[in-house]
């Protein structure tokens, strides 16, 4: 049940900071042409923001535009526009939301026109669709494209050959194109400085994510987590702004932890932690608040999520390393969550279940994201087998509102929570009998 007297939703300093950062980046994008700034479009997984900044370029992320538009309920129309133009109903809705937005004038989520990119920086990391998406955008913008092929961790490990291949592409393909498009010479010391800032921010992010090991967890690592990863997954990794954001966030979460508080939700502080869950898969964005409410109404807190690792997996120890700048960027790209093979993904989830003392696993299977979704039913079985804890499966989509069925999802969640209760009751009876 929702707390009848929720605390007022007071914005923390970190929230205000992030809001200003996002608005600032969109503002810079809107005035890029007037300001003489070049723009690179790129993706979240394998995002090379530290490198892009070395060339004074701005970073525009089509996935983030789709997410922002999804949260503003604009993507339904964009997707239908793209389908009207011949794009299949079966394919990724991020792509169609982006193409539909472009078809309707390329007005960004904040209502201002987005600039045409000067460079498409295609980091082909953990998702086949990225490659086609950028070919589609290239046909649209007819601008230069730099392709960075990031090999998949088929055997669950990063090899020297993989790192060397990515580094060579950075040196031979990506950096020369960034130099050519921007007119700025590459300065590796500048990259080192950016990477050092990234590592500082990553340290604080990991601390925040791991705070969920406490009972009660002071954060929701999925619904809240998507806000926490925002700066580091997008146009701010490597900036002072990001360092400052994560410093503020860590301090705020530290206070919550010290006070024994649960997560902040749109309805205020969550009073009672009844279920601790690990969630696999991206959230639905078009009904994000409604989706979240289904959890906090029941006292369910997500203590770890895989989606919050899609743009970089830092809690296993990886940090951007200024002493090995290009190798470090390569290892970052290679290590993103969906670039790991299925056994490695399952190992990670099982580890989260254990370390975060989760009651169960919930998979939100996304219709249009095969990178995440193909194989998730095996993930579910394996986690149940290994941990003995219940897992549940719901289906929705990223930004297509047609595939969010609240009644079905709510029913499934309620049944799932009952299952967790029964399992707990069973465990208690067994313990008493023993």
């Amino acid at each position: 049940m929702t707390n009848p007297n929720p605390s007022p939703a007071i914005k923390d300093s970190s929230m205000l900071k992030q809001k200003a950062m996002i608005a600032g980046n969109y503002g810079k994008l809107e005035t890029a042409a007037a300001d003489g700034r070049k723009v690179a479009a790129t993706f979240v997984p394998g995002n090379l923001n530290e490198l892009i900044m070395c060339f004074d370029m701005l970073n525009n992320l089509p996935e983030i535009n789709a997410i922002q538009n999804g949260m503003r309920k604009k993507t339904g129309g964009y997707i239908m526009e793209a389908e009207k133009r011949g794009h299949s109903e079966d394919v990724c809705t991020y792509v169609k939301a982006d193409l539909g937005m472009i078809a309707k004038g390329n007005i960004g989520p904040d209502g201002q026109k987005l600039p045409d990119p000067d460079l498409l920086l295609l980091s082909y990391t953990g998702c086949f669709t990225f490659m086609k998406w950028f070919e589609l955008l290239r046909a649209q913008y007819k601008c230069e494209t730099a392709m960075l092929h990031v090999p998949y961790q088929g055997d669950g490990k990063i090899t020297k050959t993989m790192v060397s291949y990515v580094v060579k592409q950075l040196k031979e393909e990506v950096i020369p194109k960034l130099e050519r498009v921007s007119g700025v010479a590459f300065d590796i010391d500048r990259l080192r400085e950016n990477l050092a800032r990234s590592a500082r921010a990553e340290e604080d992010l990991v601390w925040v994510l791991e705070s969920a090991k406490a009972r009660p967890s002071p954060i929701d690592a999925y619904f809240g987590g998507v806000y926490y990863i925002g700066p580091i997954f997008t146009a701010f990794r490597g900036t002072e702004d990001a360092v400052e954001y994560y410093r503020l966030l860590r301090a705020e979460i530290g206070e919550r932890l010290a006070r024994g508080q649960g997560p902040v939700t749109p309805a205020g502080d969550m009073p009672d932690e009844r279920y601790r869950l690990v969630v696999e898969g991206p959230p639905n964005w078009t009904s994000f608040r409604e989706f979240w409410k289904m959890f906090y109404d029941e006292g369910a807190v997500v203590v770890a999520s895989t989606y919050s690792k899609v743009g970089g997996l830092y809690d296993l120890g990886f940090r951007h390393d200024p002493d090995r700048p290009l190798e470090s960027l390569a290892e970052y790209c290679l290590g993103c969550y969906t670039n790991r093979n299925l056994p490695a993904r399952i190992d990670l989830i099982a580890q989260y279940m254990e370390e975060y003392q989760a009651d169960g696993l919930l998979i939100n299977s996304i219709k249009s994201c095969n990178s995440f979704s193909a194989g998730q039913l095996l993930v579910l079985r394996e986690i149940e087998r290994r941990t003995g804890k219940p897992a549940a499966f719901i289906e929705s989509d990223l930004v297509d509102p047609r595939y969010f069925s609240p009644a079905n999802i709510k029913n499934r969640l309620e049944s799932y929570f009952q299952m967790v209760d029964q399992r707990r009751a069973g465990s208690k009876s067994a313990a008493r009998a023993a």
Partner: protein
Amino acid sequence: MIPTTTEIIARCQALFDDLNFTYAREWKAARPGRIVVGYMPFYVPRELIHAAGGLPLGVLGGGEQLEVIQGDAYYQSYICRIPRSTIELGVTNRLDFVDVMLFPSICDVIRNLSGMWKIMFPKVRSRYFDVPQNYRDDVGGEFYIHELAELRDLLAEASGQPVGDDALRASIALYNENRALVREVYAFRARQPWQAPSAEVYLLMRAGMIVAVEEHSRMLREYLAAAAAENRPRRDNSRVVVTGAFCEQPPLNLIKSIELSGCYIVDDDFMLVNRWERSDVAEAGDPLANLADAYLHNSGDTSAKYEPDQAKKGLYLVEAVKRTRAEGVIFASPSFCDPALLERPMLQQVLAAHDIPFIAFKYAENSGQMQPIREQAGTFADSIKLWSNP
């Protein structure tokens, strides 16, 4: 005595229908030390498997004959059918003789299936086989040679014998011969499609996914001779290229339906692996470097491959139309196939720019209802005859 087309195709049909892969089982049992290496679409270097004393076995799903029961429990409704029928083949022990499974870099579904295979069939050596999307010799080429070397090591481990350069060069020569014959059959069909119906050509090529390369080359030669000797009626059909079917295969009835509706299929992308290299792979010198060179600079195009040059995007389809004197293109793609369906609008734009008519539909490997396909393809054939420039 040269067998007739009927006899050759009857043998191919029997191979196609046999989901217990009796041929491959018997091939393996015939000599100790032999291995069978399964591979999924679209491309693996079969020469390496052959040189390791192995039989490359194309695993192209369960088709329309296989009832998928357990496989459906592993996939949501919005995932294509080939991974679920492949799992069905696995869990029903139809692939229990396969020593190594290879999963080429074609899409996220097949990529993730490689990991599923490791979990579900831990005794089988399985590998995700990556191919470079960078086509520079010193960048993608170097990476790919390393991938090939790792695959060679894996195969040597599975077969218990090293894969030497001489053996590999000999295998490359055999596959060069086979690819040349495959190209010859395709060229023959493009010249005289009434003499080589697409269902026959399809079954002949499917046989090449199962039988040893030496035997398949013999079948191709025999078919070329037998088909040329036939005297089949020439119909006033439209000539079409079928594209988008490079992974999950269409039902045989779909191919027959397209022809029955008034279209001669003069080119297709059903099984790209059998003619992936457009001309011979060099036989002298370092064989891994030669395979890499062929992949980077002399291989076909498909949507699983990045096209670095926007100006060249999709032109391979226009060239196929010109080369085969086709009058239109049919986009036949499996439902939920990311590579084919994301690529389709880009290819359609290129075709439109070249005034090449096209239609599109989707299928699943077990699609049973062909009436809509016949109607659509028939209308397309008629419209070409009525409205296209002579």
